[in-house]
């Protein structure tokens, strides 16, 4: 199937993009297109207009500081993964990014687009949540910062308003002495995960984020939970579902296995 007709805008400034977005009744932002174009082709979405933001200068920067990593809206997954300094400040970002799709998809897809797409089967939304990051949003009315814990409202539903453009995402740095790890299981390399787990261990604190086993990106505090109870403690907050790729029971078993493995690895990384 092909996309339904839409009006196409390719603004060259952010201000112009925001004006256009505000003036359209049902418009969508087009960034890397790696999630949106399939939805349009399958006619799951049929917006009246697309605002292609890829010609706007200045949105493709990666700023690495001691505080963390700020990623502009047009930074492709591949650029962020290849950046030499990101790993030093926040190793969970490249560790999780390496599992986002195939290299060819990462060449086009943006990390910010992936976050605001708010898919609970995607790696980067839950990584942002686990790290307590945030998204900068701009509209004709001004800008605001949306903390990750307020960003994910429902399945593929973010707190971004239809007239807003996410201009960047911020991943806080890993504190000294903390450790992270990420692992997922997928049918084929590069596929969406059947289940995935990210963990941050800092002193006594143990927190984990889960991919593909809930409707919304979910982070669970596992501080003080004995190792052999980690799986059940996590599953109390998750809702693994059955689809053509795996049964709910199999996904639950992956959670049990992965959460122990990943928490152990994060502890080792912290030591």
């Amino acid at each position, binding site marked *: 199937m092909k*996309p339904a007709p839409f009006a196409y805008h*390719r603004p060259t400034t952010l201000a112009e993009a925001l004006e256009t977005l505000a003036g359209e009744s049902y418009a969508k932002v087009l960034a890397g297109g790696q999630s949106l174009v399939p939805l349009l*082709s399958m006619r799951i979405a049929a917006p009246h207009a697309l605002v292609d933001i890829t010609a706007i200068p200045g949105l493709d920067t990666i700023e690495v500081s001691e505080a963390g990593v700020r990623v502009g809206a047009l930074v492709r997954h*591949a650029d962020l993964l290849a950046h030499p300094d990101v790993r030093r400040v926040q190793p969970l970002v490249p560790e999780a990014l390496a599992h986002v799709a195939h*290299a060819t998809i990462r060449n*086009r897809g943006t990390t910010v687009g992936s976050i605001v797409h708010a898919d609970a089967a995607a790696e980067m939304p839950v990584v942002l949540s686990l790290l307590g990051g945030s998204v900068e949003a701009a509209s004709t009315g001004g800008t605001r910062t949306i903390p990750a814990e307020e960003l994910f409202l429902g399945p593929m539903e973010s707190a971004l308003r239809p007239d807003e453009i996410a201009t960047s995402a911020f991943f806080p740095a890993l504190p000294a002495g903390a450790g992270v790890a990420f692992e997922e299981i997928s049918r084929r390399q590069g596929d969406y995960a059947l289940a995935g787990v990210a963990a941050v261990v800092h002193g006594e604190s143990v927190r984990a984020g889960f991919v593909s086993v809930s409707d919304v990106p979910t982070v669970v505090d596992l501080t003080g939970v004995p190792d052999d109870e980690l799986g059940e403690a996590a599953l109390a907050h998750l809702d693994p579902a059955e689809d053509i790729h795996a049964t709910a029971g199999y996904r639950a078993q992956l959670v049990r296995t992965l959460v122990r493995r990943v928490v152990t690895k994060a502890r080792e990384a912290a030591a």
Partner: protein
Amino acid sequence: MSEELHRIRLSVNGVTREVELPARRLLSDALRHDLGLTGTHVGCEHGVCGACTVLVDGQPVRACLMFAVSAVDTEITTVEGLTREDGSLGPVQQAFAECHGLQCGFCTPGFLTTVTACLRENPHPSHDEAREMVAGNLCRCTGYQNIVKAVERAAELADPQHPDGQRPVGQQPDAPVEVQR
């Protein structure tokens, strides 16, 4: 209401051509229908199979996940652009032919573009790296073993230091590779 058409320029394989098309025209369709470059194949049309992969500014990209109107200001290379100036096969194409890396050939353009770009970035891949290069492309015929062999062979053919490297255009390989039929 008739659909608005956009008059744009696309630069494909070093040639710039003007086309008039609706915004919803996928780059894959623009290449095939508007420009007549049918080497780019279309399988799934949602980014999964890799048959439509072309190079955009040298990087492998799914042509079915891009609108042609978004491809202005880029340099596109399709499988037609991988041959040498005289029309003979480039190293990756040559390697796929030698190693029996294709049967029906439907998936092949996507493999050729992807592998061309990957070998530019990593000219001497390990076996695992060669496998990873083609991990995002599906083939329903070959079983992949010969495709991975073709990647490794292409690395040799593209390497001027290798005895078979940069063989003069058109010359047959010295020792033909055993081909299973």
